[in-house]
């Protein structure tokens, strides 16, 4: 039984069946990639996992509990973090303040007002944020406005913000989209390191096959809202059904 169990999930947008009967199981501490052509329903599936969308049918179980019907912040507290396709960070705040916010967000979901404490007085939290920023090599940018960072740095900051919460499951929506090859390789290394060091399960949506084949332990191919195949990278390579989904029907 995997840490994330998706059973029979379906979602309709008007006349469009975005997802139809998706079954998927992500093993603990594995890296699971979900690939598929445009419009296959990858992002819709991810949105169903984090509470942004509620599927019409099926169930999503995380760590033995259903995530359906929970608000996004409750799902995050269960241990799911998500990195978005376009980095979602606090653009008006500095890099350091960006990092402080997930550090203040405790896992127990308790609401803390903290209205009359000062930030430097919260030593543990400040140190935690500084250590994380050092881990991702951003210590020299901590006073910059997050909005003025480069795209790659924004992505790195967002990933660090997710990681500092020590999630059990990290969802990555095209983490290398729009990156140069060198940056892509850096990101791959970073993710490999995270997976090895921190025992974080990852589910990755990706177009770049280079990334998929260097990271994933299992791959699910989605096409038109349904999973086509699920297998190891070796077997996916050159799988006739996958070729068909990506390149179109072979001429008879």
């Amino acid at each position, binding site marked *: 039984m995997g840490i994330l169990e998706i059973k029979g999930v379906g979602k309709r947008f008007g006349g469009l069946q975005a997802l139809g009967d998706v079954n998927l199981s992500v093993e603990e501490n594995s890296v699971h990639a979900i690939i598929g052509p445009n419009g296959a329903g990858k992002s819709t599936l991810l949105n169903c996992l984090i509470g942004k969308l509620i599927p019409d049918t099926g169930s999503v179980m995380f760590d033995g509990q259903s995530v359906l019907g929970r608000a996004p912040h409750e799902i995050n507290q269960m241990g799911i973090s998500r990195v978005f396709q376009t980095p979602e960070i606090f653009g*008006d705040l500095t890099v350091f303040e960006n990092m402080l916010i997930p550090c203040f967000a405790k896992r127990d979901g308790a609401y803390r*007002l903290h*209205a009359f404490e*000062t930030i430097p007085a919260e030593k543990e939290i400040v140190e935690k944020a500084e250590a994380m920023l050092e881990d991702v090599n951003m210590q020299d940018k901590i006073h910059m406005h997050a909005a003025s960072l480069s795209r790659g740095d924004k992505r790195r900051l967002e990933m660090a913000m997710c990681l500092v919460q020590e999630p059990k499951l990290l969802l990555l929506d095209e983490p290398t989209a729009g990156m140069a090859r060198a940056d892509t390789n850096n990101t791959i290394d970073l993710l490999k390191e995270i997976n090895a060091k921190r025992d974080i399960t990852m589910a990755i949506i990706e177009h770049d096959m280079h990334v998929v084949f260097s990271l994933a332990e299992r791959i699910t191919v989605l096409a038109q809202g349904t999973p086509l195949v699920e297998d190891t990278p070796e077997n996916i390579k050159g799988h006739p059904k996958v070729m068909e989904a990506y390149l179109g029907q072979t001429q008879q």
Partner: protein
Amino acid sequence: MLGLENKDTKFLLVVVALTLCTPIILQPFPEGSSLAQFNAGYPDLMQRFAIFGIFAIGFNILFGLTGYLSFGHAAFLGVGSYSTVWMFKLLSYNVLPGLVLAVITSGIFALFIGYISLRRSGIYFSILTLAFAQMSFNLAYSVLTPITNGETGLQVYTDDPQYLMGEGALTTTHVFGLAMNKSLIVPIGGWEFNFNVGYYFCAIIAILAFYLSLRIFRSPFGLMLRAVKSNQQRMNYTGLNSRPYTLAAFVISGMYAGLAGGLLASMDPLAGAERMQWTASGEVVIMTILGGAGTLMGPVLGAGFIKYFENIFSKINDNVLHGWFSFLPDGIEDFFINIVNPFFGEGWHLTLGLLFMCVVIFLPGGLMEGGQRILNLLKRKSKDTADDDSAHHPKQSPHVAE
């Protein structure tokens, strides 16, 4: 000191000094001179500076930090005033019980309105708060007449119980025997300085209110509120529910408004429904934006600016204008006065509107941004930079011990 960083402590001390010296600063022209009409150092106006300063500081905690534009804050001002006057009617003219009740009732009222309105954001939130404020206004004006005394306004009558009123107690508002309307008038040279008890009472409360808001701005709570403004989606996906934070900000700013309303009634024991009108709600929005939303000092500046305009600029009538243009030949004088007239006196709203437009278009950061730009210009000219005390914009000063 006081849980503040050095820079903020300095800033707070400057604010305290300015506030305490206001009766002197606002009286720059000698009595009897032709410019004396621009003096603003009389008690009634100075009290308004302090009170509306508190109102705007509180509004800024909501609008400046979270970006939620409430268009119904005057409702809390009115609730505060009514509560205070009721305390005068029931207990005595001591203002303290009234102020405490004003803060409590406006807090409860804000909790109720905020709980419902904060289900929506953006323009829908503004409309909901506006609707609540107008409802409150109409209730106060007609339906709730037994409590609010309808269009006459609530005031203290001689047959009111006033249970705590001892023999020979003061019949004007006071704090433990110190009457609010008492003034010490000090003539120095041609100048006349008016040190008024009511003003200093308001000023001390305003300084406390300012200190509290400074602490909130620098606290983790303030950081969360700015996160709400910046990216609510990311906040939710970080495991934080933004609603309790915004609600807390809404209640705090409602309590500030209630306190301001209570002080208004403490200076003049009257409370009318028109205090809850949407124009009053709009005024605090204009004050905050004019001064600079999200800055600490901006709202206070904006409040002072508008109250000065309302009281001084509006007094420049035809006769004064004739005096100014009397050096011109008759025909031209009349011509000039006809052009200028709509902008002065009764027409001060027109000038204020134009000014507001200019600020919004050219200085989106308000008067604070204007001041900052001038400072930067001066700095560039003289390289020997003194300690810059103008960086109170929360975005520009990272909250880290450097």
